[in-house]
């Protein structure tokens, strides 16, 4: 058993279930629910990745007929694009970092026995699961999946007759998003209440690990953002099925005047992006929190500027609600409005830079241990900088307008929001796998996975910047028909080759994950010599997390290389080192 001080027994909200159904399916245990979210996201990421592979193959071999799928038509390409984006943004980037690891580790890291409302927690997972099933069902209905993109802009998304996939498939898409919003709102409610009300004695807000801060702020963003998307989705469903005209103006579709008038497609864009931009931070903030944790643990140094890190995350969260207009510079908005959104967007660079310099400051002079989670954490910082640096470019309306419809934007948001966040998920998996499953993941396979992913990601997305700057347009299913895009085909071929290698590398991770569950080296309770509460309890943690005991916290979460300490770290629950603590 790891070290630590505990006071009294911990009243747990529900007793340990015995049957398979209550223990593993309709479980109230936050750890099982966390694993459910994680494996849902894992399934989703492989589905989403397969869709991207199909797109990449189609882009360089447009006439290739694939087994089971046949030839990919332009509208099929748009369906793949829509479903790839939707699955990745909602069911991977939002689900794994917050629903998965947040659910599993937030209560343990603050010293609680469970989430505040376990039944609601179970419900939020199953609603999310249902949302995923409904979304995937869109592939199998008449007309197939929708082709309006993950942003679902009307009038295309609002008119049943606008194209194949815009019938039942698009309805299922909207219903899925609405269900996802419900699940996310319930989850946010639980995260906020748990953080505010269930911290162990001594666990003040400013002693919380930065992971907990990140989950907490992410939950606040989710609470404020998902309700807006839910409302927008309800209006879209009504426009699609009840003949209302919230979003649809007078429009002619296939030579017929549609039975709508007066609606505003821009209304959807405003509502959607009021959700959509905070969503970027919902995806990335948990990875930022985790990266801070890992950089400190594996540099054996306290995090550089703990309070600055907290305030930077809060600033990013607040500013994230003030910049949605930068997604709409193309919409013909007033230059003065665009200027305001542009300035606010660039302002986000300040807290982002604070975080980056603090990560570098933590690494500086540290006794760095290049473990797999640390490799992915450093990889995260690299991707965050590389993807982030193009943000201020796109924040300028004069630059965004020519770049907006090009691959430059694809490259930007995949690096910073997509792959950086995915690196956070990988880092979290390698870091917490020993605690979750009681075994270590294979390090050699992890290193192969890291280098293939890291180099592969840059090989895929750096050329996309140049491709975009050469005015290659996104959303086009074929580039062979346009002369200047045809000349850039070798670049596309290189990107596809890199994507195939990178995707192959992910199977190393998948194999390692399941192989290590059974054959991995047995893990101790604290294999990384970390200080936070999850490492004070048994591996895997018991049903109530601390075996009937209540932890008492005496220190901040990053007490490494403490002068006078017997080890180079001091557990948060260690009363003996109270006097030497910072």
């Amino acid at each position: 058993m790891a070290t630590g001080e505990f006071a009294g027994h911990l009243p747990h909200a529900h007793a340990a279930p015995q049957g398979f159904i209550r223990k593993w399916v309709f479980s109230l245990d936050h750890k099982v629910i966390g694993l459910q979210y994680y494996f849902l996201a894992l399934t989703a990421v492989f589905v989403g990745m397969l869709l991207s592979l199909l797109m990449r193959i189609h882009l360089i071999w447009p006439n290739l007929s694939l087994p089971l799928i046949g030839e990919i038509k332009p509208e099929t390409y748009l369906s793949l694009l829509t479903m790839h984006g939707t699955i990745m943004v909602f069911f991977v980037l939002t689900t794994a970092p917050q629903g998965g690891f947040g659910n599993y580790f937030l209560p343990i890291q603050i010293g609680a026995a469970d989430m505040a409302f376990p039944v609601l927690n179970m419900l939020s997972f199953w609603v999310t699961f249902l949302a995923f099933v409904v979304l995937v069902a869109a592939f199998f209905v008449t007309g197939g999946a929708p082709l309006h993109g993950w942003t679902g802009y009307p009038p295309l998304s609002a008119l049943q007759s606008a194209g194949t996939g815009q019938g039942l498939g698009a309805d299922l898409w909207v219903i899925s998003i609405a269900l996802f919003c419900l699940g996310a709102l319930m989850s946010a409610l639980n995260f906020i209440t748990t953080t505010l009300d269930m911290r162990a004695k001594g666990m003040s807000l400013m002693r919380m690990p930065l992971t907990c801060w990140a989950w907490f702020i992410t939950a606040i963003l989710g609470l404020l953002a998902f309700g807006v998307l839910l409302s927008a989705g309800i209006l879209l469903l009504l426009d699609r099925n009840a003949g209302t005209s919230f979003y649809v103006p007078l429009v002619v579709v296939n030579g017929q005047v549609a039975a709508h008038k007066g609606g505003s497609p821009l209304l959807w864009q405003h509502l959607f992006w009021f959700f959509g931009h905070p969503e970027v931070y919902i995806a990335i903030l948990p990875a930022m929190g985790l990266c801070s944790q890992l950089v400190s643990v594996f540099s054996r140094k306290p995090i550089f500027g703990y309070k600055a890190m907290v305030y930077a995350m809060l600033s990013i969260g607040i500013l994230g609600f003030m910049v949605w207009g930068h997604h709409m510079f193309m919409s013909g908005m007033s230059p003065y409005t665009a200027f305001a959104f542009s300035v606010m967007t660039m302002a986000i660079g300040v807290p982002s830079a604070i975080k980056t310099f603090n990560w570098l400051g933590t690494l500086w002079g540290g006794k760095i241990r290049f473990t797999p989670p640390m490799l992915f954490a450093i990889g995260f910082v690299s991707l965050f900088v590389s993807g982030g640096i193009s943000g201020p470019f796109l924040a300028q309306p004069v630059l965004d307008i020519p770049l907006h419809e090009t691959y430059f934007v694809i490259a930007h948001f995949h690096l910073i929001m997509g792959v950086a966040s995915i690196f956070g998920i990988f880092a979290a998996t390698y870091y917490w796998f020993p605690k979750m499953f009681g075994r270590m993941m294979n390090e050699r396979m992890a290193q192969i996975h890291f280098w293939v992913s890291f180099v592969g990601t840059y090989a895929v997305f750096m050329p996309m910047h140049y491709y975009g700057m050469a005015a290659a347009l996104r959303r086009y299913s074929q580039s062979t028909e346009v002369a200047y895009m045809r000349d850039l085909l070798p670049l596309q071929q290189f990107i596809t080759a890199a994507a195939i290698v990178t995707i192959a590398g992910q199977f190393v991770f998948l194999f390692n994950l399941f192989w290590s569950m059974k054959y991995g080296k047995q893990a101790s309770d604290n294999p990384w010599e970390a200080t936070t509460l999850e490492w004070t309890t048994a591996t895997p943690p018991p049903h109530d997390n601390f075996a009937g005991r209540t932890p008492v916290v005496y220190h901040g979460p990053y007490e490494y290389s403490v002068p006078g300490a017997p080890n180079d770290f001091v557990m948060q629950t260690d009363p003996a080192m109270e006097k030497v603590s910072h």
Partner: protein
Amino acid sequence: MSNFSSTLDVSTLPSESRGGIALPFESRLRRARLGLLVALVGIVMIFISFTSAYVVRQGLPTLDPGTNTLVRDWFSVRLPSLLLLNTIVLVISSGSMEAARRQALRGTRNGSKNGLSWLALTVLLGLSFLIGQWAVWQKLAASGMYLSTNPGSSFVYLLTGAHAVHLSGGILALLAACGATLLRREAESRAVVVDVAAWYWHFMAVLWVYIFCLLKFAR
């Protein structure tokens, strides 16, 4: 260095531990109220979005293909006077709910399990409100105002419908509280449910007054 002051195994806790009964009443009440407050923020965001859409849509001109000019297509919907009566019913129900809440909290101190009558009255008033809203929709439909007739009527149905869905959730919570009373559940558990349901109910009343004013005065 381990310093364990207790070795209690949670699996040995009594079955009543399900639902968090092991926590002191004040802690359970505080947690439930906090959870509700957070939930209300989420609901507020939903209605802020609807309001924002309402204001934007109201101000939008649309192209008239006949004259090729921009015209305003928003009609003010004459609200049936029954809506005012419904509003009064809901505000009264908020009063009866408050009586039920105070009685439930008193019950935690004196052990009294009475209080069903106030809850039942609130449920009755809540159902009356919903039936009244249904009657309002019927009246609107009879006057030719359907969901898709005009953006003005779309928003009347949308806002009243969204509120009715949320209020129905409140009625379910009240029925759960009535069930807890009938099943003679422990007074503190009942008080937590009634207290939270009451604050939710008050919020629903305030939200309704806001929606009513929006539909009445910002037509």
